[in-house]
């Protein structure tokens, strides 16, 4: 599912990480500043590694030797960022429809289904700034899911939330991940979340993979 090998110098930080995972849900785990988000950015196409190769679900997204570098907007890697990054000038509904609209899709049954699954129906006409942190993250997850994802990259989606908000989202997340038909990369430094969700755990420290653990 994920075949990643990236080398990059980010200021003083040297990222040199390689891992392979055939699990549908792979976790990327490690302390803050270990390079997790940089790996996500490289997979998403927001960061160009100096060297390496990135393939997701058999599709090569980046290969420095073959000079392949698919632009971010054509990768289909939908990212849920830690700080949700909802578009402040759009309503929740417009945020949810953003990627779907770009893909030429309309508001349809799948839209209603995901909105219901995430319990964000009452929020549709609101602006992101009027939402709580937990609501924002649910909308961000919905926005990624509705954008015809080829893979889902969840970059610490719960890290900015307090325990109560975390508990509010985890049921949605587990349900979503349990039904996942596309590869999911789940980035977190929380052991609990990872054990709940992932089959393969890739541990990162100081920009390097220290251990790959298979579970179940």
């Amino acid at each position, binding site marked *: 599912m994920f075949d990643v090998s990236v080398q990059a110098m980010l200021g003083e930080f040297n990222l040199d990480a390689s891992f392979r995972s055939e699990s549908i849900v792979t976790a990327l785990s490690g302390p803050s500043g270990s390079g997790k988000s940089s790996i996500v950015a490289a997979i998403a196409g927001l960061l160009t590694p100096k060297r390496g190769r990135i393939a997701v679900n058999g599709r090569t997204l980046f290969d420095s030797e073959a000079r392949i570098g698919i632009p971010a907007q054509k990768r289909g*890697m939908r990212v849920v960022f830690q700080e949700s990054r909802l578009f402040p000038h759009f309503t929740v509904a417009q945020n949810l429809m953003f990627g779907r609209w770009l893909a030429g899709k309309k508001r349809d049954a799948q839209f209603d289904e995901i909105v219901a699954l995430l319990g964000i129906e009452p929020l549709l006409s609101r602006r992101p700034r009027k939402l709580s942190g937990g609501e924002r993250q649910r909308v961000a997850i919905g926005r990624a899911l509705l954008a015809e994802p080829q893979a889902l990259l969840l970059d610490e989606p719960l890290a900015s939330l307090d325990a109560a908000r975390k508990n509010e989202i985890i049921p949605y997340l587990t349900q979503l991940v349990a039904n996942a038909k596309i590869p999911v990369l789940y980035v977190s430094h929380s052991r609990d979340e990872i054990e709940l969700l992932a089959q393969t755990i890739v541990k990162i420290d100081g920009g390097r993979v220290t251990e790959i653990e298979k579970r179940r």
Partner: protein
Amino acid sequence: MFSFSADEIDAIRLSLWVASIGIAASLPLGMFVAYVLARWRFPGKILLDALVHMPLVLPPVVTGYILLLLFGRKGAIGAWLEETFGIVFSFRWTGAALAAAVMGFPLMVRAIRLSLESTDRRLEDASRTLGAGRLVTFFLITLPLALPGIIAGLVLAFAKALGEFGATITFVSNIPGETRTLPSAIYTFTQIPGGDAGAFRLAVIAMIIALAALVISELLARRTAARIDG
């Protein structure tokens, strides 16, 4: 006291027209240059930045003279434009609009650049991961978020353009109904005996327009910001 002569009305109308056309026509280039200065890194950037700001620090007469050299009928660009497109700048209102655009340009670029620099680039990244290319992202995300700054830049440039005098009079002279804008008309009034009343009337109009422009821009900026904030 406040009954305007036809010449005065002409000057007011011409001023508004010249400033509006000059600013509207330079907006696309202004946005592009602001974007380049805000986002790109390239050698010679500091030079481009300085070049854009030149009209702000040069004596306006010098700017007008350079415009005359370049865009006059015998000027390098002016001759070519007349031959190819039939566009003439010298001693026409179009020249006054060009002078207005050039003088307003630094203020416009500065405001738009600041606004672009303060928009959250992480939102642009998010947009790209959702399938929007750079151009689509610019129009759907960057531009709307920078809109208050763009409006502010437009109004500042417009106000500067309205007040433009030195470059205009050097480049396109002071022809009634063609290039005699508000400042030129006021200047003319002060040069003739008994022109004080006319000068005063036009000066009051200039102040009213300037004040209105500033108030409108502030209101627009607030409304736009409120709309973005939700």
